[in-house]
């Protein structure tokens, strides 16, 4: 599948995953930095891992961005049969779409409707649908979001500027090491003539976490 670059994550910095690789090393190494290298080198010396595996996995991590999830959502909006397969088995449908899962996790896709708004969280740590969205934002891993999303989701959503009407149910799904979630946002009105690429461009990371709705404005430039 072709990567696409619609600048759909303003201020998020996923556009240049390779640019910073050397910069951090200019700073003097710190305790934990040294510990990471020492652990890794010892495991390699003991032949428990291969030297190349870490580098290859960094490439895998760099290849995973919310653009992948956005393409899945756009396809689901356009293809009802794909959407049905996606909701039935998120992992299998993503794999069919060409997104490999590099871990043992299952993926449950949660569809937002007129009556239900979904939000995902990991209260215990930071479980996240990494194969389709990449690494989670820091706020997803920090205490305020983890603690509050399950007890006062409407207040949390309001802090993201998202007001859910009282007659819409808010469902919060708490991720685990084995089961991850992805929100299928509602397709906004006014997108009836959008192409698949144009639709993907308005699907941001945060819409797939469920903290904001997909909006036409999110895509920025449109012909």
């Amino acid at each position, binding site marked *: 599948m072709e990567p696409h670059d619609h600048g759909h994550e303003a201020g998020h910095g996923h556009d240049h995953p390779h640019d910073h690789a050397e910069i951090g090393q200019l700073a003097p190494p710190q305790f934990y930095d040294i510990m*990471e290298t020492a652990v890794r080198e010892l495991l390699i010396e003991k032949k428990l891992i291969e030297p190349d*595996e*870490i580098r290859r996995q960094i490439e895998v991590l760099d290849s995973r961005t919310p653009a992948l999830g956005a393409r899945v959502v756009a396809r689901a909006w356009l293809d009802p049969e794909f959407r049905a397969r996606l909701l039935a088995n998120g992992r299998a449908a993503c794999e069919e779409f060409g997104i490999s899962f590099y871990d043992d996790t299952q993926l449950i896709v949660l569809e937002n409707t007129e009556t239900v708004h979904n939000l995902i969280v990991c209260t215990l740590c930071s*479980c996240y649908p990494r194969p389709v969205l990449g690494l989670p934002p820091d*706020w997803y891993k920090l205490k305020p979001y983890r603690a509050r999303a399950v007890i006062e989701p409407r207040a949390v959503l309001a802090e993201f500027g998202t007001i859910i009407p009282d007659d819409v149910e808010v469902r919060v799904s708490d991720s685990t090491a084995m089961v991850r979630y992805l929100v299928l946002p509602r397709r906004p009105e006014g997108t009836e003539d959008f192409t698949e690429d144009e639709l993907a461009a308005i699907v941001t990371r945060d819409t797939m976490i469920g903290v904001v709705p997909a909006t036409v404005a999110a895509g920025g430039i449109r012909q």
Partner: protein
Amino acid sequence: MTSTENLVKRLPNDIGGLPAEPIQRVEHELEPWEKRCHALADVLDFHKIINTEEKRCGVEALGAEMVGKLSYYERWIVAFANILFRKQILAPEELARKMDEVRARWNGEAVVGN
């Protein structure tokens, strides 16, 4: 509830439903060592050396003070070291010596003996 009861009922990671501050929408590009640490976690999982749940438990076992004060990937690498010690894959002295060697190498110093 007694003052210590909550410590028993709530391990450090178990914060769902607790009162907390407003969301700060912070993000940062991972440092190179943080990205390597993440890749290491995945590779350890692939090889069934440390799986995701063992990692989560390992972080929890650091205790509330370290969970509160160390950064995200700092918690991970310390948890990995502890788990590898417990599984007798690494020994603490071995890691200490290797860390001295890495530090000396990065500082451009010659490593003297071991």
